[in-house]
């Protein structure tokens, strides 16, 4: 679904642009949502390690210097949750939220457990601080602890509700938030996912592995 800017002629130029960093789980959520909805977009890479989020071009677009940022013609939206809600309202194919209000609320809760209780406590800024002050082992222990606690909360939330995916047999918002977080937990922090059997079934792991560009 993503096209590099150099590959497109003017006629083929997708009207959506996503400013993203390949490793950012927040950017990943936006990519998944765009792909689920079958929306083509121009991928604009912003290398956070090189400080490209502070470039004059990007700062003009988003003075807060965060990724992801979605540009839809003259509308510019930052923050992964705001982007997902915007996409869901404007492009209703493959809805990200179920109609049932209870299930919808559970999706919001799951998304927020990831975006407020887990991701901010194991992002680069926090981990660098802990490593600098307390060392590398403490950093890993901290990350594993924060993620583990969040996953345990999610496990309780989703028990009895999950099916093939987090909140049933369709992919919804909860899955879009969960997939990148679980991926990070496994690949970067070496968490053993066997503790959280409700969240991660064999089938959902397949989907997580395929939820890449």
């Amino acid at each position, binding site marked *: 679904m993503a096209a590099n800017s150099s590959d497109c002629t003017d006629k083929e130029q997708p009207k959506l642009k996503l400013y993203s960093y390949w490793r950012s789980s927040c950017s990943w959520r936006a990519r998944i949502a765009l792909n689920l909805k079958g929306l083509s977009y121009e991928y604009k890479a912003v290398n956070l390690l090189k400080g490209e989020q502070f470039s004059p071009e990007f700062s003009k677009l988003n003075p807060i210097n965060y990724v992801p940022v979605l540009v839809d013609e003259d509308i510019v*939206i930052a923050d992964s949750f705001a982007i997902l809600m915007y996409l869901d309202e404007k492009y209703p194919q493959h809805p990200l939220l179920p109609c049932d*209000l209870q299930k*919808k609320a559970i999706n919001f809760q799951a998304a927020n457990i990831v975006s407020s209780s887990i991701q901010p406590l194991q992002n680069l800024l926090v981990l660098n601080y802990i490593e600098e002050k307390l060392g590398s082992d403490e950093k890993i222990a901290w990350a594993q602890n924060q993620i583990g606690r969040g996953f345990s909360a999610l496990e309780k939330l989703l028990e009895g509700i999950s099916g093939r995916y987090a909140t049933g047999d369709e992919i919804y918002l909860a899955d879009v938030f969960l997939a990148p977080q679980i991926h990070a937990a496994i690949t970067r922090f070496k968490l053993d996912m066997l503790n959280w059997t409700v969240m991660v079934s064999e089938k959902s792991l397949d989907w997580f592995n395929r939820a890449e560009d």
Partner: protein
Amino acid sequence: MDSRPHQDTSGSFFSSSSDKLQLYSYWQSSCSWRVRFALNLKKFERLNPLHFVPVLVDGDLVVSDSFAILLYLEEKYPQNALLPVDAKCRAVNLQAASIVTSSMQPLHMLSVLKYIEEKVGPEERQSWAEYHIGKGFAALEKLLKDFAGRYATGDEICMADVFLAPQISVAVMRFKFDMSKFPTLCRIYEANKVLPAFQASLPERQPDASID
């Protein structure tokens, strides 16, 4: 989410004409505060005390997490809507809410501060809190500068206000944070502060408030 000990919490009943809602709230929790503020804005009446933080019980349905609760309330009780119809303005409100709930509050919640204090040192606790609060408010000031009217995103009170007002209050009261670098946010806060819905949601007016 706040991880507060259960015995220190209390809750309230909020009712409308057709439904009874129970809110489990902790008087000092900024997350609980957002929900109280929103319920007051939607003209739910508080009846009577109870327990937790925040958890909303609506008939059979139980919703925890302040952001999820607010989005649920928005959908089920559309009176005095807190999210505007305009797509861009709506997105700005959600972004402002995310900045507070993801970039600020989790970094200065008690469990994190205790960890910093114990492992790094007592003097680090305040500077850590101030750093993250400052970073978040700087982002919000930039975001809302061109959108604010009387309130955060215009002349009607919206979701951004519900998140912002308690956060500013907590920053100032609990961390003695100096807001003078953020004139837009200060102005928004002054406008929110005088609202009866905000006044009624103040921590010190809650049934579980204590002097300590």
